[in-house]
């Protein structure tokens, strides 16, 4: 029987995972576009202007869906999770409101200025407007992740008047869990945007189209991607030890560790068997590695899932596989980005690299979605870890209402997603516009 809780969870999963198909590219490509435009302002090289326009166009197509699907998320807490909203609105609601006031206005206003302002602003002011968009979208990520960080690791509150009330705002905005999520999510987003630019550039380079142009784009993206692909592995590891401290059940599920162990090893190959509360297979142990990674001490004790009653454990297999795959992809990206960096000046001489890169584009998308599966599924059965169960958080509404809206979400989002990716494909393949048809910012034109 499908109940309101399950339906609402499915709906939230659909709405947020779909939203997150568009967010990372916004976070990363805004900065890359800003870098290209700044290079143009600094050097006067028209290729960089064309780059800003070309990547900016793809940015806008992607941005449209990011914005419109974001609005539904903002209201879902009220529509589907009204008990949650009442219980934690004092803290969670204020973070969302700050996000809107500080970031959304800036982002939405200046993306329009950038989009429509080519002939109205000086080149510097025009470049500034895309920087403001980039900064604003990243600020918005910070606030929403501080809000999510609070759900993962609630701090700075007390229970009063039958709800969680804020007692220390500073603690909430300096919550290490939230900052970890922020660093990890934005670098993941930058990786995604990096491989997006690399993949499309490689596709054109392999066909010998606009070679000088795409070599310039390739080079910028190569350096960029290397930095964040390496940083991601490092901060992902720190993020893991934060999880170990704040959410031991999630850590146990991520590693599918059933029994508490001192000096816990890490198995390179594990197949969890949730039903029998064990692993079907555990191969290639690295002694003490899990303890070392989680607590920076190879002899430390790591708690196993059996420490908690079954109803307090998250779904193990889903959390485990999502985590494994994300980490695997993380190492793959690090390796690929080294190869890319090595060939940054002469990518046209690396046919295999050029052939592979377009196929890499979807992988960071996958990694990001998997990361969210780890973070959100792994937090279950809690909506706010240790404080409120997800099952106690839903609105008093009829299952039919949620069932219908869920179907509507799936239908509308699938259609729009298809259209959006079709357009991204179309304009990515088309390449940058020819030089003479370009409208440069006003003073250069004059």
């Amino acid at each position, binding site marked *: 029987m499908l109940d309101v809780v399950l339906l609402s969870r499915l709906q939230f999963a659909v709405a947020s995972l779909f939203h997150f198909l568009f967010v990372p590219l916004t976070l990363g490509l805004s900065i890359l576009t800003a870098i290209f435009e700044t290079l143009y302002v600094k050097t006067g090289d028209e290729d960089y202007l064309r780059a800003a*326009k070309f990547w900016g*166009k793809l940015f*806008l*197509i992607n*941005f*449209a*869906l990011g*914005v*419109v699907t*974001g*609005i*539904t998320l*903002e*209201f879902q807490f*009220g*529509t589907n999770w*009204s008990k949650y*909203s*009442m219980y934690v*609105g*004092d*803290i969670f*609601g*204020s973070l969302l*409101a*700050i*996000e*809107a*006031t*500080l970031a*959304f*206005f*800036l982002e*939405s*206003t*200046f993306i*329009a*200025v950038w*989009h*429509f*302002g*080519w002939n109205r*602003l000086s080149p510097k002011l025009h470049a500034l407007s895309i920087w403001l968009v980039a900064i604003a979208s990243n600020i918005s990520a910070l606030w929403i992740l501080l809000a999510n960080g609070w759900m993962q690791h609630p701090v700075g509150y007390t229970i009063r*008047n039958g*709800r969680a*009330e*804020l007692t220390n*705002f500073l603690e909430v905005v300096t919550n290490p869990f939230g900052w970890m999520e922020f660093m990890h999510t934005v670098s993941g987003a930058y990786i995604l945007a990096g491989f997006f630019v690399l993949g499309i550039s490689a596709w054109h380079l392999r066909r010998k189209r606009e070679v000088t142009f795409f070599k310039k784009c390739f080079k910028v993206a190569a350096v960029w991607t290397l930095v964040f692909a390496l940083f991601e592995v490092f901060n992902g590891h720190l993020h893991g030890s934060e999880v170990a401290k704040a959410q031991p059940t999630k850590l146990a599920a991520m590693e599918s560790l059933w029994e508490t162990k001192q000096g816990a090893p890490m198995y390179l190959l594990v197949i969890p068997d949730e039903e029998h509360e064990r692993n079907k297979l555990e191969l290639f142990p690295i002694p003490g590695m899990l303890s070392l990674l989680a607590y920076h001490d190879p002899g430390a004790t790591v708690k196993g899932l059996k420490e908690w009653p079954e109803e307090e454990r998250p779904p193990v297999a889903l959390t485990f596989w999502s985590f494994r795959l994300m980490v695997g992809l993380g190492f793959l990206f690090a390796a690929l980005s080294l190869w890319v960096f090595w060939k940054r000046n002469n990518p046209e001489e690396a046919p295999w690299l050029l052939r592979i890169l377009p196929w890499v584009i979807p992988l960071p998308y996958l990694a990001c979605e998997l990361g969210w599966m780890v973070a959100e599924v792994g937090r279950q059965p809690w909506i706010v870890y240790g404080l409120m169960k997800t099952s106690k958080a839903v*609105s008093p*509404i009829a299952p039919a*209402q949620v069932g219908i809206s869920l179907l*509507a979400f799936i239908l509308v989002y699938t259609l*729009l997603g298809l*259209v*959006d990716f079709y*357009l991204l494909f*179309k*304009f990515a393949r088309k390449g940058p*516009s020819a030089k003479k048809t370009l*409208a440069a910012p006003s003073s250069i034109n004059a």
Partner: protein
Amino acid sequence: MEQNIFQIIWFILWGVLWAVYFTLDGFDFGLGMLLPFIAKNDVDRRVIYNAAGPFWDGNEVWLITAGGATFAAFPKTYAVMFSALYTPLLLILFALILRGVAFEFRAKEESPVWKGIWDLCLVVGSFLPALLFGVAFANFFQGLPIDWQGIMHGNTLSLLNPYGLLGGLLFVMMFIVHGALWLTIKSNGALKRRAKKVAESFWVIEMLLVIIFLVATGFFTDLWVNFFRYKWLLIIPALALLGFVAIPGFLAYGSYWKAWFSSALAILMTTAFGVAGLFPRLIPSSLNPDWSLTIYNSSSSPLTLKIMTAVALIFVPIVILYQCWTYKTFSEKVKPEFLETEEAY
């Protein structure tokens, strides 16, 4: 819960955010609804899209902020408001999604079928929110059948009662006139003349609805009570009426900006009228006045309200400043040369 000044400040801010949202996105909705009636060819249609082009997205953020502010300052109201109105709110959200992508996608393909699809999305995506916001707010003014836990007794269709529908119609009409006035500013030639005509004729219906609405409010709600208790509040409906009445005068003299500002004042003050009448309630309960959600029984803690007040007082003026700047920067008419560029919608 104890009473404090911040609850009152946030009540006012709450009203201001919604009022500004309706005033700004209102003209976008109006343009969208007018599209099939006022545009004779594709150039006209593109002028309409581009008349809203640099603004609609920034306007929509006022809605997100109004929602966020409700969540932050009055979490219980946020929870009840959106769960009780589950279906209408989701319809609004889907409509806004379609409208947003219509702007972005329409010009990306040449095929008339493609354009037709997005035109339809724009029209529906503008009409539905205009109507449903009106219905929703009229129902707030009237009170929702919510019990002491904030659970709604009554189905979605019960919102389509006479007063609710009247509110919906009023919103639709206000926004159509508002959008037509915006188009008189943004366009030239035949399109501009048609926009002016539309504004003039729909203004008559708008005016009629305003009067019916103000009278009906006396019968269906107790909003007027506050205005007779605190007489100075009557300045709000007076300004609303002044705004409405001034529109045709300015139009006749060709003062299009002034006509639009009058309409803006009218929408701002009409929203403010409803909100001021509600005070100190946010959503009255039609079952039992004691179950109403008020600023006292649904607000956040004083600490949260204080922090949010600081944030709002610093950042909202900054937002207003740069949004005004963009309105000024893009105040020109939509010119045919602009439609030739790659950037144009």
